Each structure stands twice: as C-alpha cells, then as structure tokens.
C-alpha cells in the first residue's frame, strides 16, 4: 500500500525525525520504502533517509508491503505528517 505525504516539518525529513522514523520502521516486519523526486530508499535505514534530502514542502511517497503493512502505514504516515 502507498500514500503520498507532504513534509511539513521546518527542518525537513533529514534531521532529527529521521532517526525516530527509522527506529519505528525497524519495529515492523513489512518492507518500508520512501520515495522522493524519483529516488527510492529503504525506510529502515537511517543513513538512506538522510541522503534523501527531503526538505520542507517536498512530497514523499511511503510504501509498506508485507504482513503488518496496515499498522505500519497508519503509524508512520501519521508520524511524517506531524513531525517537527
């Protein structure tokens, strides 16, 4: 399953929230990917999220595929929307 989300956080997705996100993502079994401007990376990799360079205002697509995808999507999508 897929969902498009706009980054609202002032500092973008690459700063402090990245490590919280990766930590949460690692708690799920399903594959979690994030894509932004044609680049797709592993959402469980803190270093890959940093290289994504998703700044405020950019649109990212969150993809969760696997057993617990519904729970993962619900928590992670909400996290990206509300992080600051």
């Amino acid at each position, binding site marked *: 399953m897929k969902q498009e989300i706009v980054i609202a956080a002032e500092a973008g997705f*690459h*700063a*402090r929230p990245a490590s919280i996100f*990766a930590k949460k993502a690692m708690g799920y079994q399903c594959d979690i990917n994030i894509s932004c401007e044609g680049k797709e*990376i592993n959402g469980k*990799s803190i*270093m890959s999220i*940093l290289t994504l*360079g998703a700044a405020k205002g950019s649109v990212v697509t969150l993809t969760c595929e696997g057993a617990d995808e519904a729970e993962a999507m619900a928590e992670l999508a909400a996290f990206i929307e509300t992080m600051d």
Partner: protein
Amino acid sequence: MNGIAASDGIGIGKARIVNKPIIEVTKQNKVQTDVERQKLTDAVAMTEKQLKNLEDVAKRQIGEDEAKVFEAHQMILQDPEWMSSIEQILKEEKCDAAYATDKATRAFIQIFEGIDDAYIKERVADLRDVSHRLLSNMLGIDLVDYSLIQEDTILVGRDFEPSDTVGFTNPFIKGFITEIGSASSHSAIIAKTMGLPAVIGVPEATKKIEEGIQLIIDGGTGEVFESPSTDMMQKLTTKLEQQKEEAEALKKLITAESMTIDGIAVEISGNIANPKDAVHVMENGGDGVGLFRSEFLFMDRETAPTENEQFEAYKRAAEILKGKPLIVRTLDAGGDKHVPYLNIASEMNPFLGYRAIRICLDRDDLFQTQLRAILRASHYGFVKIMFPMIATYDELRSAKEAVQKAKETLKKLNQPYDEAIQVGIMVEVPSAAAIADILATEADFMSIGTNDLTQYVMAADRMNELLGNLNNTFHPAVLRMIYQTIKACKNAGKMVGMCGEAAGDKLLIPLLLGMGLEEFSMSPTKILKSREIIRRLDTRALGTLVDTVMALKTADEIKAYLETFSRRL
C-alpha cells in the same frame, strides 16, 4: 621521569597505557567469503554490546544527552543499507570483511559530505566512530573507552588524536602523558583549553610506565612521579589544593577590566580551534578571541568544508562572543597540520614549504570560499580577518585583493557583511618582522605568532625534542624581532597583538606590555592569571625593564632577570 610542561596543573591517578595501533586496511583476496561473513557478524554483535554498555554507563554517570550519542551509534550499526552494502562488496569482490566495511563506509561518507547541512555533517562523525569501532573489533584491536573509566586515571599514550580528546571530558581523567609532540601540538592545545594537566614528549613512556601504578604529573614543570612516596604525595596534594584556591580567587577577575595601575587598557583574549571553545573564553572573562585556528574545521575529513558550513561555524563563534572581537585566521594548512585532500606533496622541510597563505593564494576557490564565509559571519558580530605566514608585501596585497573580490561577489548576491572589516596579518616569518614598517602601511593590525617566529628565527624545528634549548622565545634575537614589530605598528598607529605561547607567559607579560603590546591572546585557562598580572603592573615603570632586558646577552640571563622581576611584583 621528565617531559615538556604542556598544560599546567597537578594530576593524580592510576596509569592507563593506551596503545593505539593505526588501523590500516589493505584488500585481501585469498579469503573464504563464509569466514569473512562470520567475522562481520561477530564484530557487529560485539560492537552492539559495547555500545549498549556505553549507553548505560553514560546514562548513569554523565547524562541523558551523552547517552543519546551511543543510542544513535547503535542505530547506525543496525542500518540495513550499510550492512547490505558491506555484504555485497564481500560477495562481489571476494575480499576480507575489514576492506568491505571500510569501502562501504567511505561510499556513505562521500554522499554525506556532498550534502550541505550541519546536522548531516555531525552524522558523518558518528558513522566514522561506529565504523572505527567495528573495524577494531574485527581486527582484534583493543579500544579504550574513555567514558567507561571509573577511577582517577592518568592516560599514557604515544599521542592523542582529536577523536580521543573528545572523550577526555570524563571527570575521572586527571591528566595525560604522551611520547611525542611539543607544547604546541594538538593534544597540548586541547589540554590547555580544557584545563587538563599534561606532560608531553616523555620518550618511551608507554613502555617505561607500568599499567595501574599510581602516577602524579605536574603539568607546570613537566615532572612525572611513579609510585610516589607518602611524603611526595603530601607535598603535591598540598600544591594541588593551593592551585584550586588560587583558581577560585582568580574567578573574581572574570568581570574585571584588563587595565594596568596607570590606567592603560589592553585586551586579554583566547585562542580557539572551534566555535565551542569560544564558550571557554567567555567563561574565563576573555576580552575576545585573538586567534580562531580555522584549519581545525578542515582537518579529519574527506573534503573541504563548504561555504555554508564555515559560515555557520564563524557566525556561531561571533554570536557567542556577543560583540567582542573575533579574529579568524585563514586556513593555515601544511607544516604539521595535515589536510590530506589538499594533496600537498610531501616535502623535505614542510615548515619551510608550501603552507598557509602560500597555498591559499595559489588556490583561489579554496580561499574565496573561506573569505566569503568569514565576511558573511562579520554581519553577526565583530569579526576580523588575519592571514598566516605573510612573508612579503606582495603577498599581503594579493590577499587583500582576494578579500575585495569576495566582497564584490557577496555584494552581487545581496549578502550582508561588514564593509569596514579589519584585515591583518600574523607576524611569524622573520622577513615579516624585518619589514614590519612596510607591512604596517597595508595591514589594519598585526598579531605576533611566537611559536613559529621562534622556530624560524632560531632555525630550530619546534617538533624536534632535541632542540628544546634553541626553541625558546627568551633568546635576544627573538625578542628583538618582537620589539621591532611592536614599534613599527605603534609608529603607524596600528593595533599590535600576540597569539603565540609567549602571550600567556607570566614572565614575558611585563616585558611585552613595556614594549607596547596591546592585545594578548592565549589558551582560555590562562586569561585570568594574565589579567591579574596586568592589573598589578604600572607601564611607567616598565621602560627601564625593557631597556635592561634588551641589553642582556643570553636567553638564560633574560629569563633569570624576568624571574626576579616577577617575584618582586
């Protein structure tokens, strides 16, 4: 045992020998991939355990913030992309685990360094740390975790790198001894900034000192005492108490003016290597920063810092100083300061070679980037630019033209900067002291760098432990160069300061003040003591002192005379 007195203070603790082999990874192909994969798995497990332990200890003893660093390190270690890229290299290149780890790490560092973001730059340091730990575990190298030390300890090592000295904030570390280096090497500078006692250049210390024995070091005299007698212990403990009391008494001077009895105000400033050190300067009541060693922003990395990164660093320092002057010395690479990516060929005499302003005038991109960064920071405080190693009038003219060019670029981009920014030079090459009057027509200020000036005037390499006697600022030849420079600046009405070791030397301060020096920049920990001395001096009485000292024939005579003078104060 004796060494160079590098950082004042008495340290008492158990000896901890730090033998730190350099990790050199060379590709090995005659390996079994299964065995290498197992090595990687084992090393990861061991690293994870160590990091968990460090996190727990930090949480209990230091604080939540410090513990978070190790939590972040565990996140990096668990990163699936890093691990899978190591495994991929293992498989494709049929090489050893250490080489694969090193190669995968470098690839990530390269991507990160291409991103202009302060947060990401800090993560590079984390990644380096974790990969260093992982590699050490893989290669069976014993790592010393400074933050795990839990009893009073004196560290003994060949030398300590910046990555070691960050761990020295642990209050159980009472001082350190090194085998190599001089009073102006990195570890000595850091020790002085932190106020940690240190004795440097004790030959074969790691072999001669026994692990675990009781040690006392006196960083003020360079003495090392092994298993001291109760008597000796008593004597030095008393000295330690006195030092603490004196430091307590000096704290009253934090807000006092740096002014002599007869009302002559001078500046007593601090030397710093990064913006954080500016906090130490403020805590010690410094009148500003007389030397920001910008080369430290360039060291221990794979590529040069970007304009924004540098701008942020200079701006932060300027803001911490709240309007007090900040003198940024432009990149002083070469000599003993290695910056690998500048690709400087190795030379027979690096101190006499391609270094400092000589490199910058040659590499316009590098120089312009730095100058723009400093100029932009000048909008946020009282910033000045200083060029190191100026030897000729032409060099100063060219460097000033480069500043003009950087200003014009910023003007086109509508970036704010201080149009009236002062541009000065360091006087450390004898030729500059010889033509100080000529240079004073172009420079807004001068700062005498006594460490290099001494080694150049005396033709004595300051890294050479055998030449200690020559490498001494008290030699009349060096003092004449200093006096001549001060007089030239006075005649031209330009500000003259000093940012070498001599500026914070309690014996030389009266002499330098008598010569007319206006700014003294030193290790932050020496600021208050120096202010106390200045406040007891009367410049009207110092003319005779200068005349007498300048008529003496040897360094020993001069030192003895200044000692007597200092005792009578």
